[in-house]
């Protein structure tokens, strides 16, 4: 029996009240699981979100501050004060905002509040991309050829070892921020110098590293769950349909993938989690080189992710419930053999954007909303008729998730479900998703991360 199992009876602390420090669909989704588990959910809200659907679903709301997120959802002391004032024993940060913030994790610990997430040390390990790379290498996981650049004068020598084209990446960046592609060796030094000064301005950290640019890559990630000692994986997700490094469509399991490669990725992700003694829900992201049938470690996200519902759909596991169980101090309730993937799930992110006009954000008032319901269909949203879509936060309105016995059936189900989505008052990406799921390359499956850009250019929206 592991130490984790031994500590069950002695130290597990049932949570009675959780502060949900987030907004939008993920807040509604976390509150739903809390209610199912009999845990009171207190929602921390900005002044822009006091009358939203999540606020109405929550047992109580507590004000964080004015609408801009820097003064509300990103304010560590406001979040901790809200937790203390509301008598919550734990803070669930959702994704984005403070979900991987070491200061919040430490401040929670100092206030005697459970942070539903990784430990501060683990957040530090994966939050710094160079440290995460070093951990991956130490765990025997391949990383994209590259390395840290401490002095711009060394750029040419390092680039020669890596080869062109390459990417200059900010250590503090992420989600496509702080990343520059260099194809011409003559442009290397000025690009590095610009990247360093921009990284200093944007992230307060001038460090950059160089990495080989892999032209044909697929973004495949592995969901992990750990209790600090034992780690299980919950299979793969493919998130290759991206625009400017922002995911648009995700599916589980990753389609058209060599099964040996998939198993190797599962093992690599678990090794990475084990090396960190990982606690909570996390995702190891890989770049799959389809030509070489190999994969490289990209980064680890130490939080719940937007695309988690596709994993929930195929495994039947409520990931928020497992997160909360680990946060309560329970050892993992799942053994690897308990995790069985059934069928195929696809998620579309529906954003308030005008895709016919450069994906211009479109805040406003939703005057009419129609979402499909039915077998194998799930809609995670905070939007209904009358909802305000404020300009202060990201543009995600809803996630449409379908599940079916096969990928072909899932695509078919997705088409039908999309046709029944209707949102008026703000522009949305529903029409774009309808076009994508009718495209033959998407129907076949296994597109790479460059595919969507080519697709958009092909339909005149590039």
């Amino acid at each position, binding site marked *: 029996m592991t130490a984790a199992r031994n500590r069950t009876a002695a130290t597990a602390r049932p949570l009675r009240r959780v502060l949900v420090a987030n907004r939008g669909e993920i807040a509604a989704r976390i509150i*739903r699981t809390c209610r199912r588990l009999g845990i009171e959910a207190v929602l921390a809200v900005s*002044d*822009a*979100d*006091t*009358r*939203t*659907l999540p606020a*109405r*679903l929550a047992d109580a709301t507590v004000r964080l501050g004015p*609408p*801009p997120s*820097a*003064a509300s959802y990103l304010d560590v002391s406001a979040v901790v004060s809200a937790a203390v004032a509301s008598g919550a024993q734990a803070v669930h940060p959702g994704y984005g905002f403070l979900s991987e913030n070491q200061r919040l994790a430490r401040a929670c610990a100092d206030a005697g509040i459970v942070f539903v997430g990784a430990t501060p040390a683990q957040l530090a390990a994966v939050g710094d991309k160079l440290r995460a790379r070093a951990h991956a290498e130490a765990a025997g996981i391949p990383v994209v050829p590259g390395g840290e650049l401490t002095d711009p004068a060394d750029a040419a020598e390092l680039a020669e070892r890596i080869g062109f084209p390459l990417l200059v990446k900010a250590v503090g960046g992420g989600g496509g921020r702080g990343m520059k592609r260099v194809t011409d060796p003559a442009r290397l030094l000025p690009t590095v110098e610009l990247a360093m000064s921009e990284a200093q*301005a*944007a992230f307060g950290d001038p460090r950059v590293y160089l990495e080989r640019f892999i032209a044909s890559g697929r973004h495949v990630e592995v969901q992990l769950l750990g209790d600090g000692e034992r780690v299980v994986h919950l299979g793969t997700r493919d998130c290759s349909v991206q625009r400017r490094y922002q995911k648009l469509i995700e599916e589980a399991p990753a389609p058209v993938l060599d099964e040996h490669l998939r198993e190797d990725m599962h093992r690599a992700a678990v090794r990475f989690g084990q090396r960190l003694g990982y606690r909570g829900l996390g995702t190891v992201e890989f770049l799959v080189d389809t030509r070489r049938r190999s994969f490289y470690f990209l980064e680890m996200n130490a939080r719940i992710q937007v695309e988690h519902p596709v994993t929930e759909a195929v495994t039947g596991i409520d990931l928020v419930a497992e997160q909360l169980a680990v946060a309560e101090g329970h050892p993992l309730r799942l053994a690897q053999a308990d995790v069985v993937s059934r069928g195929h799930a696809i998620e579309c992110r529906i954003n*308030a*954007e005008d895709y016919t006009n450069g994906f*211009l*954000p479109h*805040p406003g*008032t939703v*005057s*009419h*909303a*129609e*979402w*499909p*319901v*039915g*077998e194998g*269909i799930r*809609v995670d949203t905070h939007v*209904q*008729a*009358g*909802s*305000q879509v*404020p*300009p*202060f*936060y*990201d*543009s995600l309105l809803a996630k449409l998730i379908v599940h079916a016995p096969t990928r072909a059936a899932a695509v078919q*189900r997705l088409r*039908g479900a999309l046709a*029944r989505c*209707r949102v008026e008052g703000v522009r949305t990406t529903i029409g774009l998703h309808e076009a994508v799921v009718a495209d033959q390359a998407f129907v076949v499956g296994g597109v790479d991360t460059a595919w969507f850009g080519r697709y958009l250019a092909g339909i005149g929206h590039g």
Partner: protein
Amino acid sequence: MNPSNLTDEDVRDILELVDSTTVDELHLRTSRFSLTLRRDGGGWTRSTTVHADPVEGEQAEPHEPPDAEQVPPGLVPVRAPLPGTFYRAPKPGAAPFVEVGDHVEDTTVVGIVETMKLMNSVVAGTAGTVTEIRLGNAAPAAQGAVLVLIEADGS
């Protein structure tokens, strides 16, 4: 059940009730809200519509409506291209893009409006001198709100 507070769980409860009947369509209508559930091939479609104003107390539009703003004669307003948060400087602690009295060209950036995490640079659009900066740093701005006033060269 108050329809203005209708949740997905409420709709699911209604569906379970209706599922046990042969009804194909259900309309629920109040003075301000209507819900339609339609049996539609493989499943149900849920439709909600508000008849009147948005739900009472929901967040008001940021800042004042642009048409209420006074622009003194002879000055050129630079307006917010989208609703969002106006920033006067490229990052916290940095010097503002422009100050009153600065001379600008038509391509000079006078601020940033952040809308849904997208940073939109706002340019002067006119060569001239900045006479007023209407909004403070990190202030909410409605679409079309006047951010900066410029006295055009030669005016």
